[in-house]
C-alpha cells in the first residue's frame, strides 16, 4: 500500500512484497511453453546469443524484426513543415497521420501539425476525390495556411488516386472562397511500400520545388540553395546557417523546419519559421544548390542539376571535421570569398578538442545504425578520431550506399575488419553484437533494448530519440556539431570507464579523478 508521505509510482511500487506476490502468483495462469519453464527460457535465451542463431537470423528473407526505418509520408510531412505557414496534408486515412504526428511529437517534444482527409471504405471503392475536395477546403478555412503540401498513404497509392486532378477539382468546386486559383497546393506520391521516410522526403521536396518554380526560370542570381534533408537535429540546421552567414552568403535554406520544431513557450502559433514560399519559387534561379543529405535528396538533386541546370550544385555532408571542411570550401568557391577568420578559429578549436580527447576514442569498437547520410557523416568522424567502426548497419540503404560506405572505411586501416550491413534490421544487429561484440553503440532509442540484452553501452545519436530529452536541440553538423559528437562520445567512454572501475577495494585503483 502507498504511504502518504512517500507516494511512489510503478517503478518502486511493484517492487514491494505484496506486488511481487501478485506477479509471482499470476504465473500459475500464464501457462504456455515459456512461462511455465524458466529453464527452457534460459536455454533459448542463451541460444539466441550464438553463431548458430546468427546464421539462421541473417538468413531471414521475409519477416522484418525491429526495423530501423519508417515509411515515406513521414518524410513528406517533414518537408511541408519546413515551409512558411504550410500545412502538411496526407491523402488517406487519418490513422496514418495520428502516427506521424505522435512519432515526431515524441522525438521533438513539440506539436506537429498535419491533417488528413480521413479516407474510409467508401473512398477505397470510389476513390478519394470527395475527401480531397472537402478536405482541402476545410483545411484552408480552419487553419488558414499559405500553402498545402499533399502527400499520399499506401491506401491512396493502391487505389491510384490522381493528386493533380483532385487538387484542380477542389479549386474549381470551391470557386475561390477558401482556395483561390493561385493558392499553392503542392503534391507528391509517397507510397509507403517503396523506400523509406527519406524517399518520402525526396519525393515531396522534388515535387514541391518543381511545382513552385514552374514558369519562374529567369536570370541567375548569386543565391545559393541549401537543402537540409531529413534532418532531425534542429541545431544542425542552425549550424549550417551560421556557416553560410559567416561568409555573408546570399542563401536560402529550402525546407527549414528548425523553428517549427523548436517553438518558444508563452504562446502557441501553429506554424513558425520556414522557407518563404517566394524564396522557394525563386530557388530555380539560384546559382547552385547544396544538398546536405545526398541519399535523402537524390531525385531532387537530379532535377536541380539536369533540369534547372545548376551545374555547381553538390551533395556535401557537414558532419565531422572533413565533412565540414568540404562544406566550408564549397561555400568559399561559390561565394568567391576567403574563408572567414571566425570559421578558421572554430575549426582550430575543434581540432584542439579532438587532440585532447583522442586517446579515449582511439581503437574503441563501435556499432552504429541510422539513415544513410547520417552514417556516412558519423562514421567519417569516428575514423577521424581513430575509432574502429565494426558494424555499420543501414536498414534503408539506397543503391550505391554500401559501396560508398565501404570506400569510406577503406580510407582507414582502423576499419579493416568493419562490416557494412545494408538492408538489415536491429534484430540482426542483436546477433552481430552477441557474436562480434563492440565497445559502444551509436544509435536511436531502439538501441536501448540492444543495450539491455547485450550490455553494450548506447550513445544516443540518431532518430527517433524518444526516451532522452533535448538531444535534438543540439547540432551534429559543422565544427560545433563535431564538438558535440566528440563530447557525447568521449564522455560516454569515460562514464563507462568509471562504471567498470568503481568497485570499492577491487577495481578502483583505476577510478581516476583526473582524466
Amino acid at each position: 500500500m502507498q504511504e502518504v508521505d512517500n507516494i511512489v509510482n510503478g517503478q518502486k511500487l511493484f517492487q514491494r512484497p505484496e506486488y511481487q506476490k501478485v506477479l509471482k502468483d499470476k504465473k500459475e495462469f500464464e501457462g504456455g511453453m515459456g512461462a511455465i519453464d524458466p529453464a527452457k527460457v534460459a536455454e533459448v535465451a542463451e541460444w539466441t546469443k550464438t553463431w548458430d542463431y546468427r546464421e539462421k537470423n541473417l538468413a531471414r528473407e521475409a519477416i522484418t524484426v525491429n526495423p530501423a526505418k519508417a515509411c515515406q509520408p513521414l518524410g513528406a510531412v517533414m518537408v511541408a513543415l519546413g515551409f512558411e505557414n504550410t500545412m502538411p496534408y496526407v491523402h488517406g486515412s487519418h490513422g496514418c497521420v495520428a502516427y506521424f504526428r505522435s512519432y515526431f511529437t515524441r522525438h521533438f517534444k513539440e506539436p506537429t501539425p498535419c491533417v488528413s482527409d480521413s479516407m474510409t471504405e467508401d473512398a477505397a471503392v470510389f476513390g478519394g476525390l470527395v475527401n480531397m475536395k472537402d478536405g482541402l477546403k476545410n483545411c484552408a478555412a480552419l487553419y488558414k495556411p499559405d500553402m498545402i503540401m499533399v502527400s499520399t498513404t499506401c491506401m491512396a497509392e493502391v487505389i491510384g488516386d490522381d493528386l493533380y486532378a483532385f487538387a484542380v477539382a477542389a479549386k474549381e468546386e470551391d470557386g475561390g472562397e477558401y482556395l483561390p486559383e493561385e493558392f499553392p497546393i503542392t503534391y507528391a506520391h509517397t507510397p509507403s511500400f517503396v523506400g523509406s521516410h527519406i524517399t518520402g522526403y525526396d519525393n515531396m521536396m522534388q515535387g514541391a520545388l518543381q511545382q513552385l518554380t514552374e514558369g519562374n526560370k529567369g536570370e541567375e542570381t548569386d543565391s545559393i540553395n541549401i537543402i537540409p534533408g531529413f534532418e532531425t537535429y534542429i541545431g544542425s540546421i542552425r549550424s549550417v546557417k551560421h556557416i553560410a552567414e559567416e561568409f555573408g552568403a546570399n542563401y536560402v535554406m529550402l525546407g527549414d523546419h528548425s523553428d517549427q520544431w523548436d517553438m518558444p513557450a508563452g504562446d502557441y502559433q501553429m506554424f513558425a519559421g520556414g522557407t518563404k514560399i517566394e524564396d522557394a519559387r525563386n530557388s530555380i534561379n539560384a546559382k547552385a544548390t547544396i544538398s546536405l543529405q545526398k541519399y535523402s535528396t537524390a531525385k531532387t538533386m537530379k532535377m536541380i542539376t539536369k533540369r534547372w541546370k545548376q551545374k555547381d550544385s553538390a551533395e556535401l555532408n557537414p558532419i565531422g571535421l572533413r565533412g565540414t571542411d568540404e562544406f566550408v570550401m564549397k561555400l568559399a568557391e561559390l561565394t568567391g570569398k576567403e574563408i572567414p577568420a571566425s570559421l578558421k578559429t572554430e575549426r582550430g578549436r575543434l581540432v584542439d578538442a579532438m587532440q585532447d580527447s583522442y586517446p579515449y576514442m582511439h581503437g574503441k569498437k563501435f556499432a552504429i545504425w541510422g539513415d544513410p547520410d547520417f552514417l556516412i557523416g558519423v562514421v567519417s568522424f569516428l575514423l577521424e578520431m581513430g575509432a574502429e567502426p565494426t558494424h555499420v548497419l543501414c536498414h534503408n540503404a539506397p543503391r550505391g550506399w554500401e559501396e560508398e560506405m565501404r570506400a569510406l572505411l577503406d580510407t582507414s586501416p582502423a576499419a579493416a575488419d568493419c562490416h557494412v550491413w545494408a538492408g538489415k534490421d536491429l534484430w540482426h544487429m542483436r546477433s552481430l553484437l552477441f557474436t562480434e561484440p563492440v565497445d559502444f553503440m551509436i544509435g536511436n532509442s531502439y538501441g536501448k533494448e540492444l543495450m539491455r540484452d547485450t550490455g553494450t553501452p548506447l550513445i544516443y545519436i540518431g532518430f527517433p530519440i524518444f526516451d532522452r530529452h533535448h538531444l535534438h536541440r543540439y547540432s551534429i553538423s559543422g565544427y560545433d556539431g563535431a564538438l558535440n559528437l566528440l563530447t557525447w562520445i568521449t564522455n560516454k567512454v569515460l562514464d563507462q570507464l568509471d562504471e567498470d572501475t568503481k568497485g570499492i577495494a577491487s577495481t578502483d585503483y583505476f577510478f581516476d579523478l583526473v582524466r
Partner: protein
Amino acid sequence: MGPETLEAKQRAAVEEVLKAYPAKAAKNRAKHLGVGAPEDESQKTCGNVRSNKKTVPGVMSQRGCAYAGSKGVVWGPVKDMIHISHGPIGCGQYSRAGRRNYYIGTTGVDTFVTMNFSSDFQEKDIVFGGDKKLAVCFEEIDALFPLNNGITVQSECPIGLIGDDINATSKVYAKKTGKTIVPVNCEGFRGVSQSLGHHIANDTVRDYVFDAEIETLGEEIAQTDYDVAIIGDYNIGGDAWSSRILLEEMGLRVVAQWSGDATLKEMAATPKVKLNLLHCYRSMNYISRHMEKEFGIPWMEYNFFGPTQTIKSLRKIASFFDESIQQKCEEVIAKYQPMIDGVINKYKPRLEGKQVMLFVGGLRPRHVIGAYEDLGMEVIGTGYEFAHDDDYKRTKDEIFRSTVIYDDVNEYELEAFVKKLQPDLVASGIKEKYVFQKMGLPYRQMHSWDYSGPYHGYDGFAIFAQDMDLAMNSPVWAHSKAPWDKEGEA
C-alpha cells in the same frame, strides 16, 4: 451584463467554434458538439452528441485507425504471441512500444510486446500479393522464436485492397503446425476510427481462441467459485496489477487479465470464470457479451479511478459473490480508507476548484471524472476520440455539472474551447500535449499517464493525486512570462 453562467459560456463556445467551418463541415460538426447537463433527462446521449461517424476531411483529428485498435490496443499487449504488422513498414514502427503495456517476461525469447514484427511490403508484394511472403514469415518466426505461443496477423491498409487472403494462408500454417494463428482484417481504412479495430479483434478472439481447440498450453486450471477475469485493462504503467491486487485481497481469483500482461492461455481459460469484470467497455464489450451469450458468464463494468468509484465498484463486484467475499470487500475498503483519506487531505487543498478539460479515448473521458472530483477538481469539458452512443449515455451519469461534450474533437476545436473556457488543466494525449504546454497550461497525458502511473486502484489514485499536484503546482508554469514583461499588469 450579468455574470455569465458556466453553461452559457460553454454554449457560446460551441456556437463560436462552428462559425469557422465551411457550411457542409459546420453542419456535420454541429451534431458532435454539445453541452451535457447532469439533470437533463431529455438528453439521449450526453450533450445529445452524435458519435461513431466519419471524421470531417481536412481537419487534425486525434483519431487512429482500425489497425491501431486491433494491434495497438487489443492484440498487441498479449505477451506470448507475436503480432505481425502485415503490410508496409510504417504502421508497425509508429505503433511500437508507445502504449506502455507493461508485462513480465524475457523479451525476444518468451514475450514480444515491445518488439516490431513487420512483413515490410515492397512494391512487388503489392503487385503480386503478399500471401507467400506471409507464409514464410510464419516459418521464420517459429524458427527464430520457438517459445512463441501463437501469431496474429494485423492487416494494414493494402492487404484488403489488393485482395490478399491472409485467412487461408493462416489456416494452412495453423493446420500444419497445430499453432494458434490469428488473421485479423483490421485494415486502417475500415470504419471511422480505432473502434472498429477493437470489434474486429474481439471477433477473432471468439473465432480463434474460444472456438479453436488449443492444445499446446499446458495443464488445465482447476476451477474455483471465485474465478474472475479482468477484461479491457491494458496494463498501462501497470494498471491491471494495481487493480488485480484489490480483487485478490477481497478473495477473488483473477485467472486472466485482458490484454495487458496477458498470455494466450489466460484468454483461452476465460470462458470458465464466474464473472467477467469489464474496465474498458468500448474495446471489449463485444467479447464480454459473447461470453455471456455463449457460456453464460455474466459481466459487469467497473471503474477503479478514484476512491468514490473504486468503492462503488468493489461493492458491486462483491455483490455477485457470497457473504465471505462481501465481508472481505468491506475489509479491503476499510484497510485502504486511512491511506486514501491521507492522500485527499494532502492534495485536495492544493487542487480544489481547479477546472479540467479532458479528451481521451476508451473509457477515460467518463471514468476519470470521479477521480478529479474526489480531489475537488471540476471537469468542465470532456469527449471521446472514438466512442459510440452508449458511451455518451454512460457519460451522463458521471458528470457533476454542465460540461462541454465534444465528440472526435479536432485540434482546432480543442484549442478554441480551451481558449474560451480557460481551464486550469488539460488532460489528453501526446499530440496535443505541447500545444497547451506552450500556452503555459498544466497538462497531463491521460493515455500514457505521462510516463508515470499506474492510475488504477487505490495505489494508483495516490499516484494520480500526486501527479495532478505536480502538474498544477509546478513552478515552471510561472516562467513563461519574462520579468520585463510583467510591468503594468494588475
